[in-house]
């Protein structure tokens, strides 16, 4: 049986945030929504300051708190390890968001089409984009995914429902790696099947020291961090992005 996991190599990550942008375009996510997020962290005092980067996709926990608490089974666990959101079933109670210790859930606080990085209603665009909003939106994402044929891919952004990283389910199901993994300029992100002993990712995990985020909570994340250490309590963010959506 397939079990997909992601490796984040903290010895390679240069915090460029290309993964965040690739995710946004691939999944047409809206302003302030970061299914993939990269912490830029600083700790210590000059001249002994330390900088580190920490990519944070959804951890796709094997024992996912968000799945447990979902009242209607909109958040569910696929047999291949993906943790997905059925945006047709979600009732928007945001319980999963509170259950998740990693802060990876993003709620559609307003109509997503009002948060697509611009006003795309320009008539001069109509002939090219057919009025699509955003113009780069990918219809493939609005199709039901996987054997269970549920609406889980990035195409479904609807007011009042929850969304998060899908490991690019629509790509994985086509045998491709997630968009963030594909674009990483320094190959700090890797993706594959850990059930297959021979797979590159399995070997990579075997051959490197690694940890999982907030392991002690027993969530059994599917994201494996190679190199570096878990963020210390002193670590704080620098270079904050514009993340809070306001009216």
């Amino acid at each position, binding site marked *: 049986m397939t079990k997909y996991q992601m490796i984040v190599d903290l010895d390679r990550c240069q915090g460029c945030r290309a993964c965040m942008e690739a995710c946004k375009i691939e999944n047409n996510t809206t302003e302030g929504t970061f299914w993939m*997020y990269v912490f830029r962290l600083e700790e210590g005092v000059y001249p002994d300051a330390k900088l580190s980067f920490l990519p944070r996709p959804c951890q796709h926990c094997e024992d996912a708190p968000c799945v447990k608490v979902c*009242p209607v089974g909109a958040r569910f666990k696929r047999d291949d390890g993906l943790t997905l959101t059925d945006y047709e079933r979600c*009732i928007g*109670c945001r*319980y999963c*968001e509170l259950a998740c*210790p*990693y802060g990876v859930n993003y709620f*559609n606080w307003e109509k997503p089409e009002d948060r697509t990085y611009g006003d795309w209603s320009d008539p001069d665009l109509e002939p090219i984009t057919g009025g699509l909003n955003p113009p780069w939106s990918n219809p493939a994402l609005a199709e039901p995914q996987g054997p269970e044929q549920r609406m889980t891919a990035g195409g479904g952004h609807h007011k*009042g429902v929850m969304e998060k990283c899908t490991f690019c389910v629509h790509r994985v199901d086509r045998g491709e790696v997630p968009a963030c993994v594909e674009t990483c300029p320094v190959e700090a992100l890797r993706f594959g099947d850990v059930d297959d002993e021979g797979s590159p990712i399995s070997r990579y995990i075997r051959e490197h020291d690694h940890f999982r985020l907030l392991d002690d909570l027993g969530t059994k994340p599917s994201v494996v961090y190679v190199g570096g250490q878990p963020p210390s309590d002193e670590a704080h963010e620098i270079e904050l992005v514009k993340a809070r959506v306001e009216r």
Partner: protein
Amino acid sequence: MTTTLGDAGTTPTRATGPGLPQGIGKLTRGWTLFMAVTLAASLFGVYAFFYQQANGEIVTGMRDVGTMRGAPWGLYIAFLVYFVGVSFAGITIAALIRLFNLERLRPLARMAELLTVVSLVLGTLAILADLGQPVRGVINLFRYARPQSPFFGTFTLVIAGYLFASVVYLYLGSRRDAAIMAKESTRLQGLHRFVAAGYKDTAAERGRHETATFWLALAIVPMLVVAHSTLGFVFGLQIGRPGWFSALQAPAFVVLAGVSGIGLLIVLAAVVRRACGEQESLDEYVFSWLGRLLAVLTITYLYFVVTEVLTATYGGGGRENDVTDAMLSGRYAWIFWGSMALFGASLVGLLIQILTKRWSIGALVAIGLAVNLAAVGKRFLIVVPSQTDGMLLPYETGSYSPTWVEYGVVIGLIAMGAAAIGIFMKLIPIVELPEEADTRVT
């Protein structure tokens, strides 16, 4: 203070004069004014709700945890917890009265039941106000709800079972009075006949009522504990939320529920006492009994708070401390210590009255309101800080302050509740009619 015991049964003022007792059917100026205000507030709440539906919850102060540095649960959930808490007291009192035949408290029973029903309905509405997809919510909960989600407990046990049980309890209890009043030919006679549903107050009927209510009460009491515990679990089972993951959550919930409920019951009783001229039935004994109960519950609750704070500050790890600090000395300190002060003052007020054995209804009302204000504060603190200050990854500290929409909806809900009680008072006696009434029946 046992002086009033003698004339408990009969009083000339009761149920006399033209028309029905307790001013039923009579639209006084005060009542009309009260209804006007509450209905206006309710309408405002409804407007706020639909405004939110049309624009999305961007119009609230809620935002995502993590990068967005907000709190996805806010005032709505805080009040859901509060309302369900209030409901606790009502039905408990009613059940206790029935189980232990506390005859002298019987006048409290119906308003207690009413309080439960109303607050449970408000709780349900609070959930709907919070959902991003309310319509889908109603349908999908019936369609897909999963037992392993603590939310399921809230939904089925608290709302469905608990609410329905209380409704039944309230209804069955009201039949006799309805029957009595159905004798008078008034505009309400039809309604009273309907409620009475052929009740003739025969020994048999009374017997059955005894049996039914006894078993109901028996069934309800354990359910209370379960229901309120599940509500506690909604938070208590969350490993990922510093400040939530605690075995004390459930019991603390139940006790604080009691405090706020009893507090409100005192207020309601005092109002009824005035509005319906029930000075004799709702006598000092009734209030002193509620006062003592409130004192005990408050002490218990404060004990819980102390132990929780101690464990958090003493044992708690880095992030655990952040939440506690935010609460004790940080941005939320004023709410925490404000609530504590109110509890403390109320407790002092109660103890004085207990020791001096001199009870002032005015003081009790003030205390009732105080503990409820404090309870709201505490509910807010249970819900919010663990979100804004409780992230385990190095996110920036978050913030949450409600918008007019959220205040509007909450005020609207409270107003609806008040209005409902107001209307009920004008239809069915909110205080059970005294025994001697049935002599007139047969």
